[in-house]
């Protein structure tokens, strides 16, 4: 049974300064890295002889419009089926330069996950074989999950935020 501390220490030994913000909310190892290191990191975890983190559970993104320089966060959930160990890796990106290398070379499942993230947030995955919109129509000219696109029609006055949610 792997512990969070053990895996975290191995990753720090291997990647040094480029991995940081270690935390384990609800007992799930979470840390962040830079976009230069994300693919080497996932490859390292996948090829590690004992950890064998060889299952990509999910890729998604989060938009933080109020934190300058860290507007977008791409989140990878990985799972080692052998050890039953999950971990979460975050990569923060600035709004001016939201490029990140693709993980499709490592996992076939990353293809649609990245397309979905591109569709909803506009994160550009460099090297993706077919980066098109997937859930929304091709003609759409914005990325709807960004916080600046409100769900409600902003001209309506009968729905007050204080009463009907955020």
């Amino acid at each position: 049974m792997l512990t969070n501390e053990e895996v975290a220490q191995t990753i720090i030994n291997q990647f040094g300064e480029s991995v940081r913000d270690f935390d384990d909310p609800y007992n799930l190892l979470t840390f962040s890295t830079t976009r230069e290191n994300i693919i080497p990191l996932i490859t390292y975890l996948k090829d590690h002889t004992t950890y064998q983190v060889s299952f990509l559970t999910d890729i998604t993104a989060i938009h933080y419009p109020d934190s300058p320089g860290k507007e977008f966060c791409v989140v990878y959930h990985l799972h080692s089926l052998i050890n039953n160990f999950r971990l979460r890796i975050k990569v923060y990106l600035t709004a001016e330069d939201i490029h990140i290398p693709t993980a499709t070379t490592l996992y076939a499942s990353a293809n649609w996950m990245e397309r979905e993230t591109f569709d909803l947030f506009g994160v550009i995955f460099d090297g993706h074989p077919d980066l098109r919109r997937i859930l929304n129509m091709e003609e759409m000219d914005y990325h709807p999950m960004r916080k600046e696109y409100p769900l409600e029609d902003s001209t309506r006055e009968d729905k007050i935020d204080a009463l009907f949610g955020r």
Partner: protein
Amino acid sequence: MVSEDLDIANKNLPAEQGPVQYVNELTTLNLGPTHPATHGIFQNILQMDGEKIVSGEQTVGYIHRAFEKIAERRPFYQITTLTDRMNYCSSPINNMGWHMTVEKLLGIDIPKRAQYIRVIMMELARIADHIVCNGILGADAGALTGFTYVFQEREKIYDIYEEICGARLTTNMGRIGGMERDLSPTAIRKIREFLVRFPKVLQEFENLFNRNRIFMDRVINVGSITAERALSYGFTGPNLRAAGVDYDVRVMNPYSSYDDFEFDIPIGQNGDTYDRYMVRSEEMWQSLRIIKQAMDNLPEGSYYADAPQYYLPPKQEVYKNMEALIYHFKIVMGEIDAPVGEVYHAVEGGNGELGFYLISDGGRAPYRLHFRRPCFIYYQAYPEMCKGLTLSDAIIIMSSMNVIAGELDA
């Protein structure tokens, strides 16, 4: 005279043009978006060489309803109605998965009785889900009879849902903190009846299919996928287990007291359509085992957690009791104090690992909610699985993968 007759007979025939010219040209076939043989809205643009599929390209998103965006404006307790509409063949699993995610965030411990009731409902939902998948697989292979036998039983499961929560398809079952009501005597009677009647029906269904020569010829070695490719494609659930990987969230990360029950995880070998069918079939037997154990050992006690600030109080209490009224008002208006945090919680849905990634900033609604939808992730393997097979095979492969449009597009 004879040659004159022949001339008349040949008059309308086209002139001879020498040997037939074969052109090396592929046909494009647009399968979907609404096609009677695909259950749901799926579009596949197939390149066909005669009857053989050369390549395919999927278009998804026809029923995309932006659940993740809508969830960002909804109080936590209102999000169950969105999860209902993802995998609508097994809504209770989605509901419970969402409740458990929020309970994990809030740190609520659920009483054993509520956990057992949840397990019963989730396993009934799994049976309902697999009934649809296997029944439809049979129907698509040309055997409608089996489908009509088992669908009767799905109605009985829906009767049980109705008794528990009042709804049949989009159940909105349970609450954050437990169940909305206890198992009524009628519900218990209906579940017991189901446990007696369903094995006979399932046995009959299996007798029709499992060793049926025609069915076996249609499904064995059709749409095979190796365990390695399946893992790379992010398969989970029965489809992954059919390929020979014994990954089941119920065992790996037990939730809701699943570790109290004894059950087996069926696995296949080839990852073909027959194995997927057999794994689902065996899972129904295992689900029955779990329901039986849960019913026999159903603990006494409360069916909801002692967390009045989060659990919507019973209606009678609201009318009589001051505190209940206050909490009711606060919860309905979304004024609960959710902690800041991020949670990933996964449950074993009908099709695989259904994950909820919730980020709370302490507000009344999630800051961000992401659904890991198993269908969406494994459906991308479909063209690879169909390559080199015929169109009729492609149809049954899709049925056996159990791709649910609502979950695919969210």
